[in-house]
């Protein structure tokens, strides 16, 4: 079905090839998972098989890729599109129309399929992703999981024999993630399709026994059938166990309510946070996690209630003042790089606060060294890889030692090694007396580090407890997808999310 022969590819201006001498045969009907650390060439491989790589970038390739015997490196994209469907990471950004109907019909319309047939195929495609009820909706009104299901429908509507999913769940909460993978497996089984999934979250895919291919530095390093064996990995907690030192809380939240455009986003939240707390903040997409985090640095105005952060009333203090006490890392690294060099970027905030001295200088150097960025200090931040940008975001907050660290889904798209690096640094900051709030969808990783869990449900705080007790509460509430894998009651395919 798909065959790669000695395929190599180098991005323009890059010294190293993104893929080198990749040989791969995928048979019709196979379910293949491609994994590997950030920057290992997974996405490049997906784009290459989908035939869009050479159209997008100046093409320096070697070797051959054929799908159903056709050379996808030479064929126009629209021709390869009849053989290979591609679902990308972020559903929001791959939509080109405004409504579910237009989006799912898009590919068929481009091929001049008659209206009556389009109508029928749109309905079929939405049925296969369990989203027929969304037919009349506008895309902007959908949740993250619903959007990704519509994105999948818009690709399968044209019925390509090969489907590629490039980290289809990286922006989704665990419950939606589970639903998406079940949908993917369902599509594959029913349609006898060849499916390639690029993914970090292997735990969710294990129940389907896919073929697992691991990439590293652009080469295939492992190729085997995934087994259920590692399922029994023991649950680890307490990897980071700083002392909650002070009696006085650093953050006090009382009866917090927030309304945005007339809709209540947060209701009646009360809690206290102490120095040394490492808190995992979880909940479904849209449950109010980001809004809550932004309240703590004054970026969101409260409707009712009080928020005190390090002695400041968050509703009356300008953000740029409160920021001295509360460091915030946003979701997308590209939205928060403002300087012309890595060094300037790392020291930007302390200089803005007038707090840059010899000890800050020394700490920044240490942090950059640990992040492996010291050789890159002269480089422009936008020249870094995704993972490196993320580390730089972290360094530029840690450099001035804020007492509260607010981190919004910083683990998205990070491979386990990079994620651990970030978490170890947070743990270190907590050891020095900071309080850490980490919004995340990665219970497997964060359970090891956190001492406390907050779980939001439609703007209300459903769980606020020490980590093991909190996980127990989540299990009782039926939120199994939000538990670390070792705590899943049975293979996820048999339980409800």
């Amino acid at each position, binding site marked *: 079905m798909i065959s790669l022969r000695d395929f190599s590819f180098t991005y323009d201006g890059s010294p190293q090839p993104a893929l080198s001498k990749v040989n791969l045969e995928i048979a019709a009907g196979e379910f293949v998972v491609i994994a590997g650390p950030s920057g290992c060439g997974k996405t490049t491989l997906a784009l290459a098989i989908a035939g*869009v790589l050479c159209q997008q970038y100046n093409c320096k390739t070697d070797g051959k890729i054929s799908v159903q015997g056709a050379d996808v490196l030479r064929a126009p994209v629209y021709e390869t599109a*009849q053989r290979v469907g591609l679902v990308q990471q972020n559903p929001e950004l791959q939509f080109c129309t405004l409504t579910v*109907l237009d989006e799912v019909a898009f590919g068929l319309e481009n091929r001049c399929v008659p209206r009556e047939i389009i109508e029928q195929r749109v309905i079929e495609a939405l049925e296969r992703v369990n989203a027929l009820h969304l037919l009349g909706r506008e895309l902007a009104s959908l949740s993250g999981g619903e959007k990704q299901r519509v994105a999948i429908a818009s690709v399968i509507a044209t019925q390509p024999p090969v489907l590629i999913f490039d980290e289809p769940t990286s922006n989704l909460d665990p419950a939606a993630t589970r639903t998406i993978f079940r949908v993917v497996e369902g599509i594959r089984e029913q349609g006898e399709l060849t499916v390639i999934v690029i993914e970090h979250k292997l735990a969710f895919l294990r129940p389907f026994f896919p073929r697992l291919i691991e990439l590293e530095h652009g080469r295939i390093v492992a190729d085997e059938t995934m087994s259920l064996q590692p399922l029994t990995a023991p649950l680890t907690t307490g990897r980071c166990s700083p002392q909650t030192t002070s009696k006085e809380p650093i953050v006090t939240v009382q009866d917090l309510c927030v309304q945005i455009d007339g809709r209540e986003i947060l209701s009646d939240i009360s809690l206290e946070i102490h120095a040394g707390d490492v808190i995992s903040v979880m909940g479904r997409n849209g449950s109010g996690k980001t809004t809550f985090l932004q309240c703590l640095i004054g970026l969101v105005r409260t409707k009712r209630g009080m928020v005190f952060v390090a002695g400041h009333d968050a509703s009356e203090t300008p953000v*740029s003042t409160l920021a001295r006490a509360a460091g*915030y890392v946003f979701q997308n690294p590209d939205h928060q790089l403002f300087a012309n060099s890595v060094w300037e970027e790392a020291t930007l905030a302390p200089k803005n606060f007038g707090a840059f001295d010899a000890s800050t200088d020394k700490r920044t150097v240490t942090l950059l060294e640990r992040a492996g960025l010291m050789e890159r200090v002269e480089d422009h931040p936008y020249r870094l890889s995704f993972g490196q940008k993320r580390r730089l975001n972290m360094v530029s907050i840690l450099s001035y030692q804020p007492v509260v660290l607010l981190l919004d889904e910083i683990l998205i798209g990070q491979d386990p090694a990079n994620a651990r690096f970030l978490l170890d640094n947070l743990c270190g900051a907590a050891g020095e007396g900071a309080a850490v709030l980490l919004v995340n969808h990665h219970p497997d990783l964060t359970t090891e580090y956190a001492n406390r869990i907050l779980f939001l449900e439609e703007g209300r705080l459903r769980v606020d407890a020490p980590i093991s007790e909190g996980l127990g509460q989540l299990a009782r509430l039926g939120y199994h997808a939000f538990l670390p894998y070792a705590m899943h009651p049975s293979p996820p395919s048999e339980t409800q999310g």
Partner: protein
Amino acid sequence: MHLRYMPGASALHQLHPLVKFGWLLFLSVLVFALRNPVAAVIILAAAISLFAAGRLPLRSVAGMRTALAASLFLAALQIFFVQDGEPLFHLWSRAVTTSGLSSGIRIGGRFLAIILLSYAFVLTTSPNDLSFAMMQAGIPYRYGFALVTALRLVPIFQQEAATVYKAQLARGFRYDQRNLNGIIDLPRRFLLPMLVSSLGRVDYLSVSMESRSFGMLPKRTYLRTIPFQRRDGFALAALIAATVAALAAPWITSMQS
């Protein structure tokens, strides 16, 4: 309230977008072509009645007060500074004359009429339907989709711009305090992140569109059809008749004189 499409079920909402656009164009040209202040008042009255027909809230639309104030200002300028013609009465030692009054009404009325007509069009026409109607009327679909994808990306860019601003505050840039320090660098610090992320967005979207066969054939089919109903036919016929009449009128009048 922002100036954007407000879904509704009025006749104005249901009129075919292109026919509606044709009328907008016709009336806008007409209000400029006619030099009689009465014509400006009539077209202005027609525009106001369109708001009633579309069940649109005249007052709550953003910019309406500014538009009204601007048109009164324009009218006042004419009334005060055009001094030829018959003086009617005096105001602050300046004569208000017949021609001043007439050109004040004409220019102020024109301005307001054009604004109201455009508002009525924007408020009752889904931009999405307009683009699809244009494509189905024969405009190359690449241009049509340029419009549709822009509609799709604008809110995303707005959101990203807000995030970039927030991220700068969170890093201690004191835009939220009366402090000019660093404000000079604001555009540069703002544009680069926006540029990088929007280039990425456009790349991403083009992969998504091309890998669904966009651009494969010179034509494409459409599941969403913008129906052309009987009343659209009448409205179009009326538009053609009105255009012919408007074009013929100067001939007729000039032949008579």
